């Protein structure tokens, strides 16, 4: 459940930037360029975020912490 929330939010956000905003760009000499930039930005940034989250979905190994850090985290993190 807590995985699908960020998935939906981020997908919707970049989908909005790349798919909905281009329709609202006013007609002018730069319209094509602006739309290209918006779509490419949305695709690149979404892909980059997606790779980051998918690579952490099923970790094969965990972090190695020093015992001071473990001691601190044991008491201060949930």
């Amino acid at each position, binding site marked *: 459940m807590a995985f699908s929330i960020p998935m939906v939010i981020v997908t919707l956000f970049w989908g909005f930037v790349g798919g909905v905003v281009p329709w609202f760009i006013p007609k002018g000499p730069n319209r094509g360029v602006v739309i290209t930039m918006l779509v490419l930005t949305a695709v690149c940034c979404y892909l980059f*975020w997606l790779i980051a989250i998918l690579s952490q979905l099923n970790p094969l190994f965990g972090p190695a912490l020093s015992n001071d850090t473990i001691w601190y985290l044991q008491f201060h993190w949930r």
Partner: protein
Amino acid sequence: MDSFFRSEEMCLVQLFFQTESAHNCINELGHLGLVQFKDLNPGTVAFQRRFVKEVKKCEEMERILRFLENEVVKSNIPIPADFTSETIPVPRDVLDLESRFDKLEQELKEINSNRDTLRQNFTQLMEINHLLQMTDDFFEEVAIRLFVAGVIKHERFPAFEKILWRLFHGNFVLRHAEIKPHEEENMDPVKKDVFVVFVQGDQIRGKIRKLCDGFHASMYPCPNNAYARKEMRTNVNTRIEDLRLVLKRTEEFRETTLTAAAANLQEWASKVKKMKAIYYTLNLCNIDITQKLIVAEIWCPVSDLNSVHTALIHGSEQSGSSLSPVVNRIQTQQTPPTFNRVTSFTSGFQSIIDAYGVGNYQEINPAPYTMVTFPFLFAVMFGDCGHGLVMTLLALWLILHQEHFRKLKNELIDMLVDGRYIIFLMGLFSIYTGLIYNDCFSKSFNVFGSSWSVRPMFHPHGPWTNDTLHDSGHLHLDPLVSGVYSGNPYPFGVDPIWNIASNKLSFLNSYKMKMSVIMGVAHMLFGVTLSLVNYINLKDVALQFIPEVIFMLSLFGYLIFLILYKWCVVMKSESAPSILLLFINMMLFDYSSEGTVLYRTQKPVQIFLVVVAVLMVPWLLFAKPLLLYRKHKQLKFLSLLFCLSLFFGVKKAFVSLQVSMADIFVYQGIHTIEYCLGCISNTASYLRLWALSLAHAELSEVLWKMVLQVALRVTSGMGSVLLAVTFAAFAVLTVTILLVMEGLSAFLHALRLHWVEFQNKFYKGSGYKFTPLSFDRMRDMQ
């Protein structure tokens, strides 16, 4: 706007205009900045052209103007910067300006030489003055009659004295004193000494005179008795006063002349430049026999033909000629120049594309896509939101104050200002990738709470006890123990726990390498897709595009699939196969080792994909040449049928056809090899995205650990002072190493990825750039 995605359609136009209106018309076209004149006299050498004398005259005038400007700057007279006169230079202006410049130059040269002579006289008189003042006591002291008096440079005096001793063995008496300059005599910054040498004989005096000449010491006649000296002094003083007055007047006159000249300097300079450009353009045109008509051929964008016509009519009206110029568009087989209409935002990106190669006429222009992918790939390699923020602010400063920076006329700063929008976008994307890498000056943000927790690792839940902590320095968190990993990855970016983990690089390396490969294959697929737009007919698509795409997808698309599959599917760490080994075994058809399957139907799928990829190679290699060969055979047959009468023409056609077949096969072979091997090497080349981002992160961590953290850990009272000093060092090192050096490095590598790996999928880049006659561009370039 279509024109930025592809270069504009150009047309070749012939212009006919009268000789009288030529200057006005070309002037109007120069202000418009939209036409490029073709050279209609390509065979002629520079000094054979018609207007070569006028061009030389303009160059001479420019030389005089430079001389004037130097003189004005030397005298610290400000040149008024603004001028808005747009007067049209006509031929009679040239003569007028020429005579004015010559006169000015003569005047100035005369004034300068007069001033120099006067100054020399003045210095001499001052020296005599000093000599007379200081030698009074010498004459009291020494009563010898014969002497040589003069002034010599201070640093030469010891050598002078030494040689005197060597030559005359003490047969003389030498007295000297240093001249102490008064405040207003700053003419001569060199320190000088006054000396008097008293001798017994005339011959010795003659020798000493020669010696003084050798040492460049100036000798002055000095009267023997005190009374004559006093008279001479009053004489000299009056002369000095007179000279001072004359010098002052000369300086004032010079300044007035120069100020008057400086007021017009800018206007003259621009006029002369325009004249030179117009004569140079006229040299490119054809003048017909009657000397009344000028024919010019220009390249001009089709959409601007109307404005060109209007400009010409305007020009001819201004010159008062009766006939308006004729504009005649002609068809041609020559390749037109490539013109990409750019705005101030897009010009930076277009120039970095053009630096590698200007696109062919009407070829697809990679610039609009580069505007996002270049800063993005830079940001993947730079990846630090703190540094990205600094870079964005710097770019914002450049954008807002660009006029001020352009005025400095420094080459490096000009380059930075030209690329201000590129730097701005690079900074913005770097902030984003920095947030995803969770790296801000090498520290991480913990906004959403880490997905890893330590408590479940302890008893009774997990294997650790308090003794475990005491026994070992580092312990691994095990994701298989329930609760250690919450099951939901960190929602935005890399989990902050990796920043404090000692095996941070194991995770980050695997993540970044796979990310680089995915980005690389996506970028290259995008490039291949763009090549689709260059193909005009459907056949080329089938012959070249489809096998290229299938080859790349079946091998590297499958690699991406393996990466994503391994990420998304849960598996035990011991049984997880290495993707690299899987891929290598797939290519070698090696399925012997156990435990090398990720999913059930892996073996048949992989065999199918490799076979398909290998089949694409002969398709790429042979399909297009064979089709062309068949077409040519048909053509040969037809031409044989109907050119029997043109015997020689047919022979030549046969030879050219056969030669071009071999060419086509070779070209296609090269293209196939380049593409297939390139797929592999280019994919590996994208691993530099991983390498540079690793280097940046490590450098940033070193700066934190060894510079700033050292000062932050100091507990004594002096710690605050130490912190201030250390922070200064930290800031300087961050800017120079991480922003400038790493920034340049990432810029270079991102540019290389675009120029080579992206563009060799679709871009030919062998055109020539459209360079219109434009007075604005000439003014900006100076």
